[in-house]
Protein backbone atom coordinates (compact mmCIF):
# COMPACT_ATOMS: atom_id res chain seq x y z
CA UNK A 1 0.00 0.00 0.00
CA UNK A 2 1.31 3.36 -0.97
CA UNK A 3 1.59 5.86 1.83
CA UNK A 4 0.68 9.45 1.17
CA UNK A 5 3.54 11.81 0.51
CA UNK A 6 3.27 13.55 3.86
CA UNK A 7 2.03 10.77 6.06
CA UNK A 8 2.63 10.90 9.82
CA UNK A 9 5.60 8.61 9.43
CA UNK A 10 7.23 10.78 6.80
CA UNK A 11 6.70 13.93 8.82
CA UNK A 12 8.25 12.21 11.80
CA UNK A 13 11.33 11.27 9.78
CA UNK A 14 11.97 14.93 9.11
CA UNK A 15 10.78 16.45 12.38
CA UNK A 16 12.42 14.12 14.91
CA UNK A 17 16.03 14.87 13.99
CA UNK A 18 15.23 18.57 14.01
CA UNK A 19 14.10 18.38 17.63
CA UNK A 20 14.01 15.53 20.08
CA UNK A 21 16.32 13.26 18.11
CA UNK A 22 18.74 15.97 17.02
CA UNK A 23 22.07 14.45 15.96
CA UNK A 24 24.16 17.17 17.60
CA UNK A 25 22.34 18.16 20.77
CA UNK A 26 20.77 14.81 21.68
CA UNK A 27 22.98 12.17 20.08
CA UNK A 28 26.07 14.38 20.39
CA UNK A 29 27.43 13.40 16.97
CA UNK A 30 29.22 15.61 14.47
CA UNK A 31 30.49 17.90 17.21
CA UNK A 32 33.90 18.47 15.67
CA UNK A 33 32.64 20.24 12.57
CA UNK A 34 30.22 22.20 14.74
CA UNK A 35 33.29 23.54 16.51
CA UNK A 36 35.46 24.19 13.55
CA UNK A 37 33.44 25.94 10.89
CA UNK A 38 30.95 27.98 12.88
CA UNK A 39 32.92 31.22 13.18
CA UNK A 40 31.13 32.56 10.12
CA UNK A 41 27.53 32.15 9.07
CA UNK A 42 28.43 31.73 5.41
CA UNK A 43 30.70 28.77 6.12
CA UNK A 44 28.03 27.14 8.26
CA UNK A 45 25.50 27.50 5.43
CA UNK A 46 27.86 26.07 2.80
CA UNK A 47 28.75 23.21 5.13
CA UNK A 48 25.06 22.54 5.78
CA UNK A 49 24.30 22.43 2.07
CA UNK A 50 27.27 20.13 1.48
CA UNK A 51 26.16 17.78 4.25
CA UNK A 52 22.56 17.81 3.01
CA UNK A 53 23.78 16.84 -0.46
CA UNK A 54 26.15 14.13 0.77
CA UNK A 55 23.70 12.66 3.27
CA UNK A 56 20.65 12.51 1.03
CA UNK A 57 22.62 11.12 -1.91
CA UNK A 58 24.49 8.59 0.20
CA UNK A 59 21.34 7.40 1.94
CA UNK A 60 19.50 7.10 -1.37
CA UNK A 61 22.33 5.18 -3.03
CA UNK A 62 22.78 2.84 -0.08
CA UNK A 63 19.04 2.31 0.15
CA UNK A 64 18.84 1.38 -3.54
CA UNK A 65 21.79 -0.99 -3.21
CA UNK A 66 20.80 -2.35 0.21
CA UNK A 67 19.76 -5.76 -1.12
CA UNK A 68 22.89 -6.08 -3.28
CA UNK A 69 25.58 -5.01 -0.81
CA UNK A 70 27.47 -8.01 0.56
CA UNK A 71 27.04 -7.98 4.31
CA UNK A 72 30.72 -8.51 5.09
CA UNK A 73 31.90 -5.36 3.31
CA UNK A 74 28.90 -3.16 3.93
CA UNK A 75 30.78 -0.61 6.05
CA UNK A 76 33.47 -0.28 3.38
CA UNK A 77 30.83 0.18 0.71
CA UNK A 78 29.14 2.89 2.77
CA UNK A 79 32.45 4.59 3.30
CA UNK A 80 33.29 4.54 -0.41
CA UNK A 81 29.91 6.02 -1.28
CA UNK A 82 30.32 8.81 1.28
CA UNK A 83 33.96 9.45 0.40
CA UNK A 84 33.32 9.75 -3.32
CA UNK A 85 30.35 12.06 -2.78
CA UNK A 86 32.52 14.24 -0.55
CA UNK A 87 35.27 14.28 -3.18
CA UNK A 88 32.65 15.39 -5.70
CA UNK A 89 31.45 18.20 -3.42
CA UNK A 90 35.03 19.27 -2.83
CA UNK A 91 35.74 19.44 -6.56
CA UNK A 92 32.54 21.36 -7.26
CA UNK A 93 33.24 23.88 -4.48
CA UNK A 94 36.80 24.40 -5.70
CA UNK A 95 35.51 25.10 -9.17
CA UNK A 96 32.47 27.22 -8.42
CA UNK A 97 32.82 28.62 -4.88
CA UNK A 98 36.61 28.96 -4.49
CA UNK A 99 36.45 31.41 -1.57
CA UNK A 100 34.15 29.25 0.50
CA UNK A 101 36.24 26.22 -0.40
CA UNK A 102 39.35 27.97 0.86
CA UNK A 103 37.66 28.89 4.13
CA UNK A 104 36.29 25.42 4.75
CA UNK A 105 39.55 23.80 3.56
CA UNK A 106 40.00 20.44 5.28
CA UNK A 107 36.56 20.37 6.83
CA UNK A 108 34.89 19.45 3.57
CA UNK A 109 37.14 16.39 3.44
CA UNK A 110 36.23 15.69 7.03
CA UNK A 111 32.55 15.33 6.14
CA UNK A 112 33.58 11.74 5.40
CA UNK A 113 34.23 11.21 9.07
CA UNK A 114 31.02 12.92 10.16
CA UNK A 115 29.52 10.20 12.33
CA UNK A 116 25.98 11.34 11.58
CA UNK A 117 26.27 10.21 7.97
CA UNK A 118 27.67 6.75 8.61
CA UNK A 119 25.28 6.43 11.53
CA UNK A 120 22.20 7.04 9.40
CA UNK A 121 23.47 4.79 6.60
CA UNK A 122 24.08 1.86 8.91
CA UNK A 123 21.06 2.40 11.17
CA UNK A 124 18.46 3.46 8.63
CA UNK A 125 19.29 3.35 4.93
CA UNK A 126 20.51 -0.28 5.04
CA UNK A 127 17.04 -1.42 6.10
CA UNK A 128 14.56 1.05 4.63
CA UNK A 129 13.03 2.00 1.32
CA UNK A 130 14.44 4.72 -0.89
CA UNK A 131 12.04 7.53 -0.08
CA UNK A 132 12.07 6.87 3.67
CA UNK A 133 15.87 6.82 3.66
CA UNK A 134 15.98 10.03 1.70
CA UNK A 135 13.67 11.77 4.18
CA UNK A 136 15.56 10.41 7.16
CA UNK A 137 18.85 11.69 5.73
CA UNK A 138 17.33 15.03 4.85
CA UNK A 139 15.87 15.43 8.32
CA UNK A 140 19.13 14.56 10.03
CA UNK A 141 21.13 16.86 7.78
CA UNK A 142 18.70 19.68 8.54
CA UNK A 143 18.87 18.89 12.24
CA UNK A 144 22.64 19.12 12.01
CA UNK A 145 22.44 22.23 9.87
CA UNK A 146 20.17 24.35 11.99
CA UNK A 147 22.41 23.87 15.03
CA UNK A 148 25.42 24.81 12.90
CA UNK A 149 23.69 27.93 11.60
CA UNK A 150 22.46 28.92 15.05
CA UNK A 151 25.92 28.56 16.57
CA UNK A 152 27.54 30.43 13.68
CA UNK A 153 24.96 33.21 14.00
CA UNK A 154 25.84 33.78 17.65
CA UNK A 155 29.58 33.46 17.11
CA UNK A 156 29.84 35.74 14.09
CA UNK A 157 27.49 38.34 15.56
CA UNK A 158 29.29 38.65 18.90
CA UNK A 159 32.75 37.61 17.75
CA UNK A 160 33.18 39.72 14.62
CA UNK A 161 30.19 42.08 14.81
CA UNK A 162 29.11 40.89 11.37
CA UNK A 163 26.64 38.56 9.71
CA UNK A 164 27.42 36.80 6.43
CA UNK A 165 30.55 38.95 6.34
CA UNK A 166 28.56 42.21 6.32
CA UNK A 167 28.74 44.84 9.03
CA UNK A 168 25.67 45.27 11.18
CA UNK A 169 24.41 48.88 10.75
CA UNK A 170 23.68 49.54 14.44
CA UNK A 171 27.05 48.30 15.63
CA UNK A 172 28.99 51.44 14.78
CA UNK A 173 27.03 53.30 17.49
CA UNK A 174 27.76 50.52 19.96
CA UNK A 175 31.49 50.75 19.19
CA UNK A 176 31.38 54.46 19.89
CA UNK A 177 30.00 53.97 23.37
CA UNK A 178 32.69 51.38 24.13
CA UNK A 179 31.29 48.07 22.94
CA UNK A 180 33.91 45.60 21.74
CA UNK A 181 33.69 42.37 19.79
CA UNK A 182 34.34 39.35 21.93
CA UNK A 183 37.37 37.57 20.50
CA UNK A 184 36.67 34.58 22.71
CA UNK A 185 33.63 33.87 20.51
CA UNK A 186 35.95 33.17 17.57
CA UNK A 187 37.94 30.58 19.52
CA UNK A 188 36.78 26.94 19.47
CA UNK A 189 35.73 26.63 23.14
CA UNK A 190 32.86 29.08 22.65
CA UNK A 191 31.32 26.77 20.06
CA UNK A 192 31.02 24.11 22.77
CA UNK A 193 29.56 26.64 25.18
CA UNK A 194 26.97 27.77 22.63
CA UNK A 195 26.06 24.17 21.76
CA UNK A 196 25.86 23.53 25.50
CA UNK A 197 23.41 26.41 25.91
CA UNK A 198 21.22 25.00 23.13
CA UNK A 199 21.30 21.57 24.81
CA UNK A 200 20.33 23.18 28.12
CA UNK A 201 17.47 25.09 26.53
CA UNK A 202 16.20 22.01 24.73
CA UNK A 203 16.27 19.78 27.79
CA UNK A 204 14.69 22.31 30.09
CA UNK A 205 11.77 22.57 27.65
CA UNK A 206 11.39 18.80 27.33
CA UNK A 207 12.20 17.02 30.58
CA UNK A 208 11.92 13.58 28.90
CA UNK A 209 15.25 14.26 27.19
CA UNK A 210 17.16 14.40 30.46
CA UNK A 211 19.09 11.18 31.03
CA UNK A 212 18.98 9.58 34.44
CA UNK A 213 22.29 9.13 36.12
Amino acid at each position, binding site marked *: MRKSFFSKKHQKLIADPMGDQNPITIQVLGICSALAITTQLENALVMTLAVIFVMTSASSIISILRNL*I*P*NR*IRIIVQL*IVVASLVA*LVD*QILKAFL*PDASEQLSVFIGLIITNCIIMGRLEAFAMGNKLFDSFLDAFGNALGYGWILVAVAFVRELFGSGKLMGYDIPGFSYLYEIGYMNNNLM*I*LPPMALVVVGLIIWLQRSRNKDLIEEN
Partner: protein
Amino acid sequence: MNKESNLYTFTFAVVMVLIVGTILAVTSEVLQPRKKQNTADKKMIDILSAIGVDASRVDANDKYTQYIYGSTVIDFKGNVIEGNAFDIDILFQYRDKTLSPQDKKYPVFNAKKDSFEYVIIPMVGSGLWGPIWGFVALENDYETIYGAVFDHEKETPGLGAEINTDFFEIPFKGKKIKNQLGKFVSIIVKKGGAEKGNNHQVDGITGGTITSDGVTDMLFNTLRLYDNYFSNLVSKDRLSQKGSESEALESEIVKSINNNKITE
Protein backbone atom coordinates in the same frame (compact mmCIF):
# COMPACT_ATOMS: atom_id res chain seq x y z
CA MET B 1 23.35 -15.94 -6.59
CA ASN B 2 24.85 -16.45 -3.19
CA LYS B 3 25.39 -12.99 -1.70
CA GLU B 4 27.71 -14.28 0.99
CA SER B 5 30.13 -15.98 -1.41
CA ASN B 6 33.64 -14.64 -1.82
CA LEU B 7 33.20 -14.34 -5.57
CA TYR B 8 30.14 -12.11 -5.18
CA THR B 9 31.87 -9.94 -2.58
CA PHE B 10 34.95 -9.50 -4.75
CA THR B 11 32.98 -8.78 -7.90
CA PHE B 12 30.85 -6.25 -6.10
CA ALA B 13 33.91 -4.48 -4.70
CA VAL B 14 35.72 -4.37 -8.05
CA VAL B 15 32.71 -3.12 -10.01
CA MET B 16 31.97 -0.50 -7.39
CA VAL B 17 35.51 0.83 -7.31
CA LEU B 18 35.63 0.99 -11.11
CA ILE B 19 32.40 2.98 -11.30
CA VAL B 20 33.36 5.36 -8.50
CA GLY B 21 36.86 5.86 -9.89
CA THR B 22 35.54 6.70 -13.33
CA ILE B 23 33.05 9.21 -12.01
CA LEU B 24 35.65 11.00 -9.88
CA ALA B 25 38.29 11.04 -12.60
CA VAL B 26 35.89 12.48 -15.16
CA THR B 27 34.64 15.17 -12.76
CA SER B 28 38.15 16.19 -11.85
CA GLU B 29 39.17 16.46 -15.51
CA VAL B 30 36.07 18.39 -16.51
CA LEU B 31 36.47 20.93 -13.71
CA GLN B 32 40.25 21.30 -14.07
CA PRO B 33 40.23 24.48 -16.22
CA ARG B 34 37.91 26.25 -13.81
CA LYS B 35 40.01 25.33 -10.78
CA LYS B 36 43.16 26.55 -12.49
CA GLN B 37 41.46 29.80 -13.38
CA ASN B 38 40.33 30.27 -9.77
CA THR B 39 43.86 29.82 -8.43
CA ALA B 40 45.21 32.25 -11.01
CA ASP B 41 42.50 34.82 -10.21
CA LYS B 42 43.35 34.65 -6.52
CA LYS B 43 47.01 35.19 -7.27
CA MET B 44 46.24 38.22 -9.45
CA ILE B 45 44.08 39.70 -6.69
CA ASP B 46 46.94 39.23 -4.21
CA ILE B 47 49.55 40.76 -6.51
CA LEU B 48 47.32 43.75 -7.25
CA SER B 49 46.54 44.32 -3.59
CA ALA B 50 50.24 45.04 -2.97
CA ILE B 51 49.95 48.21 -5.06
CA GLY B 52 46.64 49.08 -3.46
CA VAL B 53 44.40 47.96 -6.31
CA ASP B 54 41.26 46.20 -5.19
CA ALA B 55 40.19 43.49 -7.58
CA SER B 56 37.51 40.85 -7.38
CA ARG B 57 37.37 37.47 -9.04
CA VAL B 58 35.25 39.02 -11.75
CA ASP B 59 37.66 41.74 -12.85
CA ALA B 60 40.97 40.25 -11.67
CA ASN B 61 42.14 39.38 -15.16
CA ASP B 62 41.30 42.78 -16.68
CA LYS B 63 42.91 44.73 -13.88
CA TYR B 64 45.96 42.49 -13.92
CA THR B 65 46.58 43.22 -17.58
CA GLN B 66 45.87 46.88 -16.93
CA TYR B 67 48.41 47.33 -14.12
CA ILE B 68 51.00 44.58 -14.48
CA TYR B 69 53.08 45.16 -17.57
CA GLY B 70 55.89 42.69 -17.09
CA SER B 71 57.50 40.05 -14.95
CA THR B 72 60.90 38.48 -14.48
CA VAL B 73 62.25 35.34 -12.91
CA ILE B 74 65.54 35.50 -11.05
CA ASP B 75 67.71 32.92 -9.33
CA PHE B 76 69.15 33.18 -5.82
CA LYS B 77 72.06 35.30 -7.06
CA GLY B 78 69.72 37.82 -8.55
CA ASN B 79 70.45 36.84 -12.15
CA VAL B 80 67.60 36.91 -14.60
CA ILE B 81 66.68 33.42 -15.74
CA GLU B 82 64.10 32.06 -18.11
CA GLY B 83 60.63 31.18 -16.99
CA ASN B 84 57.14 32.43 -16.49
CA ALA B 85 57.01 34.38 -13.23
CA PHE B 86 53.29 33.96 -12.81
CA ASP B 87 53.44 30.17 -12.91
CA ILE B 88 55.97 29.90 -10.09
CA ASP B 89 54.33 28.65 -6.91
CA ILE B 90 56.62 29.94 -4.16
CA LEU B 91 54.58 28.31 -1.42
CA PHE B 92 55.03 24.99 -3.16
CA GLN B 93 58.77 25.63 -3.49
CA TYR B 94 58.91 26.58 0.18
CA ARG B 95 57.23 23.38 1.30
CA ASP B 96 59.45 21.20 -0.86
CA LYS B 97 62.22 20.49 1.63
CA THR B 98 64.35 18.73 -1.01
CA LEU B 99 64.75 22.01 -2.86
CA SER B 100 67.77 24.07 -1.85
CA PRO B 101 67.68 27.89 -2.11
CA GLN B 102 69.96 27.67 -5.14
CA ASP B 103 67.39 25.60 -7.04
CA LYS B 104 64.47 27.87 -6.29
CA LYS B 105 63.14 30.45 -8.68
CA TYR B 106 62.15 33.91 -7.54
CA PRO B 107 59.47 35.80 -9.44
CA VAL B 108 59.15 39.57 -9.62
CA PHE B 109 56.32 41.56 -11.19
CA ASN B 110 56.47 45.02 -12.76
CA ALA B 111 53.47 47.25 -12.22
CA LYS B 112 52.49 50.67 -13.44
CA LYS B 113 49.89 52.74 -11.63
CA ASP B 114 49.17 56.44 -12.21
CA SER B 115 52.33 56.57 -14.36
CA PHE B 116 54.53 55.44 -11.45
CA GLU B 117 56.38 52.18 -11.74
CA TYR B 118 56.60 49.56 -9.03
CA VAL B 119 58.08 46.13 -8.56
CA ILE B 120 56.07 43.55 -6.65
CA ILE B 121 57.86 40.80 -4.79
CA PRO B 122 56.05 37.71 -3.56
CA MET B 123 57.44 36.09 -0.43
CA VAL B 124 56.83 33.18 1.88
CA GLY B 125 58.03 32.29 5.37
CA SER B 126 57.11 30.57 8.61
CA GLY B 127 54.70 31.85 11.23
CA LEU B 128 53.91 30.17 14.52
CA TRP B 129 51.55 27.44 13.30
CA GLY B 130 52.14 27.35 9.57
CA PRO B 131 53.32 29.24 6.54
CA ILE B 132 52.86 32.97 6.14
CA TRP B 133 53.22 34.81 2.87
CA GLY B 134 52.96 38.24 1.40
CA PHE B 135 53.51 40.60 -1.48
CA VAL B 136 55.66 43.70 -1.12
CA ALA B 137 55.62 46.51 -3.67
CA LEU B 138 58.70 48.72 -3.97
CA GLU B 139 58.92 52.07 -5.68
CA ASN B 140 61.30 52.33 -8.60
CA ASP B 141 64.17 53.40 -6.36
CA TYR B 142 64.04 49.72 -5.31
CA GLU B 143 64.21 50.60 -1.62
CA THR B 144 61.04 52.44 -0.57
CA ILE B 145 58.08 50.22 0.23
CA TYR B 146 54.96 51.34 -1.56
CA GLY B 147 52.66 48.71 -0.14
CA ALA B 148 52.72 45.38 1.61
CA VAL B 149 50.11 42.72 2.14
CA PHE B 150 50.49 39.60 4.22
CA ASP B 151 48.46 36.51 4.83
CA HIS B 152 48.73 33.30 6.75
CA GLU B 153 47.36 29.81 6.89
CA LYS B 154 46.54 29.31 10.55
CA GLU B 155 48.05 31.92 12.86
CA THR B 156 46.33 32.56 16.18
CA PRO B 157 43.13 34.59 15.66
CA GLY B 158 43.36 38.02 17.24
CA LEU B 159 47.15 37.75 17.62
CA GLY B 160 49.42 36.51 14.83
CA ALA B 161 46.47 36.37 12.45
CA GLU B 162 46.35 40.17 12.54
CA ILE B 163 49.21 40.36 10.04
CA ASN B 164 46.65 40.47 7.24
CA THR B 165 44.89 43.55 8.63
CA ASP B 166 45.38 47.19 7.67
CA PHE B 167 46.73 48.24 11.04
CA PHE B 168 49.73 45.96 10.54
CA GLU B 169 50.20 46.45 6.80
CA ILE B 170 49.77 50.20 6.37
CA PRO B 171 52.80 51.24 8.50
CA PHE B 172 55.06 49.46 5.98
CA LYS B 173 54.28 52.14 3.43
CA GLY B 174 57.20 54.52 3.02
CA LYS B 175 59.69 52.40 4.97
CA LYS B 176 63.06 51.77 3.36
CA ILE B 177 64.87 48.46 2.99
CA LYS B 178 68.24 50.20 2.66
CA ASN B 179 69.95 52.63 5.01
CA GLN B 180 71.38 55.99 3.97
CA LEU B 181 74.64 54.33 2.92
CA GLY B 182 72.74 52.15 0.49
CA LYS B 183 73.32 49.02 2.52
CA PHE B 184 70.54 46.43 2.68
CA VAL B 185 68.96 46.39 6.16
CA SER B 186 65.45 45.03 5.46
CA ILE B 187 62.49 45.94 7.68
CA ILE B 188 62.22 44.78 11.25
CA VAL B 189 58.87 44.07 12.85
CA LYS B 190 59.71 45.32 16.30
CA LYS B 191 58.30 43.88 19.50
CA GLY B 192 57.12 46.67 21.77
CA GLY B 193 56.74 49.11 18.92
CA ALA B 194 58.97 50.70 16.31
CA GLU B 195 61.39 53.43 17.34
CA LYS B 196 60.05 56.82 16.41
CA GLY B 197 61.36 58.07 13.11
CA ASN B 198 63.09 54.77 12.31
CA ASN B 199 62.69 54.09 8.63
CA HIS B 200 63.44 50.40 8.92
CA GLN B 201 61.04 49.32 11.65
CA VAL B 202 57.32 48.76 12.01
CA ASP B 203 55.21 47.92 15.07
CA GLY B 204 55.07 44.28 16.02
CA ILE B 205 51.91 42.61 17.28
CA THR B 206 51.63 42.27 21.03
CA GLY B 207 51.10 38.60 21.81
CA GLY B 208 52.02 37.68 18.27
CA THR B 209 55.76 37.86 18.66
CA ILE B 210 56.64 34.65 16.85
CA THR B 211 54.48 35.56 13.88
CA SER B 212 55.96 39.08 13.89
CA ASP B 213 59.46 37.64 13.94
CA GLY B 214 58.41 35.32 11.13
CA VAL B 215 57.49 38.35 9.05
CA THR B 216 60.87 39.93 9.85
CA ASP B 217 62.72 36.79 8.76
CA MET B 218 60.61 36.42 5.65
CA LEU B 219 61.26 40.03 4.62
CA PHE B 220 64.98 39.71 5.28
CA ASN B 221 65.50 36.36 3.56
CA THR B 222 63.48 37.32 0.50
CA LEU B 223 64.35 40.95 -0.03
CA ARG B 224 68.10 40.37 0.27
CA LEU B 225 67.98 38.03 -2.71
CA TYR B 226 66.14 40.62 -4.73
CA ASP B 227 68.37 43.41 -3.48
CA ASN B 228 71.17 41.82 -5.45
CA TYR B 229 69.01 41.80 -8.55
CA PHE B 230 68.04 45.44 -8.06
CA SER B 231 71.66 46.48 -7.57
CA ASN B 232 72.48 44.70 -10.82
CA LEU B 233 69.66 46.52 -12.46
CA VAL B 234 70.79 49.93 -11.23
CA SER B 235 74.48 49.57 -11.98
CA LYS B 236 75.04 46.64 -14.25
CA ASP B 237 78.34 47.90 -15.62
CA ARG B 238 79.87 48.81 -12.31
CA LEU B 239 79.23 45.41 -10.82
CA SER B 240 80.50 43.47 -13.81
CA GLN B 241 83.92 45.02 -13.27
CA LYS B 242 83.93 43.80 -9.72
CA GLY B 243 83.07 40.21 -10.48
CA SER B 244 85.09 38.81 -7.63
CA GLU B 245 83.28 40.98 -5.15
CA SER B 246 79.88 39.85 -6.22
CA GLU B 247 81.01 36.24 -6.04
CA ALA B 248 82.11 36.77 -2.47
CA LEU B 249 78.73 38.27 -1.68
CA GLU B 250 77.10 35.32 -3.32
CA SER B 251 78.87 32.75 -1.18
CA GLU B 252 78.02 34.78 1.87
CA ILE B 253 74.37 34.74 0.96
CA VAL B 254 74.38 30.99 0.39
CA LYS B 255 76.03 30.51 3.76
CA SER B 256 73.54 32.63 5.62
CA ILE B 257 70.60 31.02 3.86
CA ASN B 258 71.87 27.62 4.88
CA ASN B 259 72.34 28.84 8.45
CA ASN B 260 68.87 30.17 8.47
CA LYS B 261 67.56 26.86 7.27
CA ILE B 262 69.24 25.05 10.14
CA THR B 263 67.87 27.39 12.78
CA GLU B 264 64.39 26.93 11.41
